[in-house]
């Protein structure tokens, strides 16, 4: 099996049901693990596989699970949460999985919950994903009816309920501690860390939050083993990855490819290259809060390590292409408008700083900028950088801005010097 995440998916509009999922070998891994493996051994298998979180930060999934205290003394219930908030602009990967093969998520969650000895799980779904909501509701009902959820799953001692929570819409809900507040019915502002959620999480109990794509990897890893998983990749970072491309390319879309597939192959082969009359100028590789990469990076293998070395982040792996007829200042302005709107407002640098940045960019975009605005933008990048705000939202917002200032400085200058946007006729 080369494409463990998507091989069984027929189409987004026709999710595979329980019968077909089982006919293909689905739920075998969970059945076997719950009968034959200790929870710790499940975690160890995931550690050995080298799976890193697909939600953006790339933390070792097995390691995260191992931080959850085990045993009869630990406060109950413990929680497993699937982060299906997917609100990072440019990102459309989790939805594809959820709507194509919902049972693979449920099986991944059964295994994850077993590994951390959790009996209650939530799927935190972004509000706008109505179709996903319908597909998941049906799949959860199927699994319950078959006895795969509820008490004594597969005849084991282990019980699990999975609840589907549909959000009310706010980007910050995807940040894992803000998500916990949202699930508790509060404003979704992040929490201070430490304590970290694996020890003190939802309702104060040990909690694991994992991304959708991360959890889709779990059943295949248990089924085929850690070595098989590592061989799916071209580089050190194990597994496959869902890569997506949007923007002015011939065939925008989503593909499951070996981790470490080069940027050029994704854009030129899978996405069919640039549209007629458009040239490649750059790309935000992993959603709105990652640094631009440019032509010199086209041969970069897209995995966590390589992209980090090139000064950006793999992020969600769904990229947005900048072409030569689109204004980079306008694009960054659009991004900062999003961040200004979605800032949760909890800490001052982010709440006040990003709207300020947005105003500066708006002025430059309209040809009303001043030369010292560029310095001012650089200063903001510094003040909103890692460690200076309450959560990772603001540093993430600064990533596309700082790299645009680096790679497209001439464009900023031309707007200011010519007093207009050179991309507008």
């Amino acid at each position, binding site marked *: 099996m080369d494409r463990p995440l998507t091989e069984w998916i027929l189409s987004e509009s026709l999710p595979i049901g329980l019968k077909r999922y089982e006919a293909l070998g689905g739920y075998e891994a969970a059945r076997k693990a719950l009968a034959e493996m200790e929870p710790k051994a499940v975690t160890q298998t995931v550690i050995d596989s080298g799976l890193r979180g697909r939600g953006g930060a790339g933390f070792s999934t097995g390691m995260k699970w191992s931080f959850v205290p085990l045993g009869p003394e630990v406060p109950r219930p413990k929680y497993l949460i699937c982060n299906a908030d997917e609100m990072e602009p440019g990102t459309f990967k989790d939805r594809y999985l959820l709507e194509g093969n919902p049972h693979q998520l449920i099986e991944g969650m059964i295994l994850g919950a077993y590994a951390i000895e959790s009996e209650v799980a939530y799927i935190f779904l972004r509000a706008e994903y109505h179709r996903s909501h319908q597909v998941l509701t049906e799949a959860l009902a199927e699994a319950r009816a078959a006895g795969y959820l509820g008490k004594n799953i597969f005849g084991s001692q282990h019980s699990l309920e999975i609840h589907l929570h549909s959000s*009310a819409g706010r980007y910050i809900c995807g940040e894992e501690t803000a998500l916990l507040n949202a699930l508790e019915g509060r404003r979704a502002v992040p929490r201070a860390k430490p304590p970290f959620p694996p020890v003190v999480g939802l309702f104060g109990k040990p909690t694991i939050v994992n991304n959708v794509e991360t959890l889709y990897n779990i059943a295949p890893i248990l089924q085929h083993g850690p070595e098989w998983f590592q061989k799916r990749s071209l580089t050190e970072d194990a597994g496959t990855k869902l890569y997506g491309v949007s923007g002015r390319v011939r065939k925008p879309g989503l593909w499951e490819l070996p981790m470490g597939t080069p940027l050029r192959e994704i854009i030129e082969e899978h996405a069919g290259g640039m549209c007629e009359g458009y040239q490649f100028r750059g790309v935000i590789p992993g959603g709105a809060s990652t640094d631009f990469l440019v032509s010199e990076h086209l041969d970069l293998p897209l995995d966590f390590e390589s992209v980090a070395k090139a000064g950006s982040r793999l992020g969600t792996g769904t990229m947005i292409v900048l072409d030569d007829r689109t204004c980079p200042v306008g694009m960054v302005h659009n991004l900062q408008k999003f961040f200004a709107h979605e800032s949760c407002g909890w800490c001052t640098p982010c709440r006040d700083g990003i709207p300020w940045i947005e105003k500066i960019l708006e002025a430059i975009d309209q040809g009303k900028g001043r030369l010292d605005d560029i310095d001012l933008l650089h200063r903001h990048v510094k003040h909103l950088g890692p460690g200076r705000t309450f959560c990772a939202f603001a540093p993430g917002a600064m990533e596309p801005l700082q790299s645009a200032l680096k790679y497209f400085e001439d464009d900023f200058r031309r707007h200011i010097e010519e007093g207009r946007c050179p991309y507008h006729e």
Partner: protein
Amino acid sequence: MLSDQEKQEIEAELAHYERPQALCIEALKIVQKHRGWVSDEAIRDVGEAVGLSPHEVDSVATFYNLIYRREVGRHVIHYCDSVSCWVMGCDKIRNQLCQELKIQPGQTTEDQRFTLLPIPCLGACDTAPAVMIDEDLHGNLNSENLKDILARYD
């Protein structure tokens, strides 16, 4: 006052959470589903149901993009204004919507047919530009198909 239907739906969710207060968002969504939007009265109703003061409920309601604290039309058009859609020309789509409906973002048509609101990335970036009307997603929009799509909602 909560209707019996609203009460029932809220109670069904109660078993899913450790504390009733956690139901605040679910309850707001349930009430909005039945009433179209969340009025001050609805805020008080939800507060009573989940054991929070009206101020606490309002602070939650006003935080989230998809809780409407003002009356909306029969259909809500959410046009995506995030980055992929911007690259693919969502400004044109917005302008066309404003022109055809004779309203600005944030407003409702006089006949109460449509409310127009921006929304962050709809997760349909490979089919940008995209809009969501009520619960339906529409991608690959251009000036022609937009008209036909609008005609489906009356």
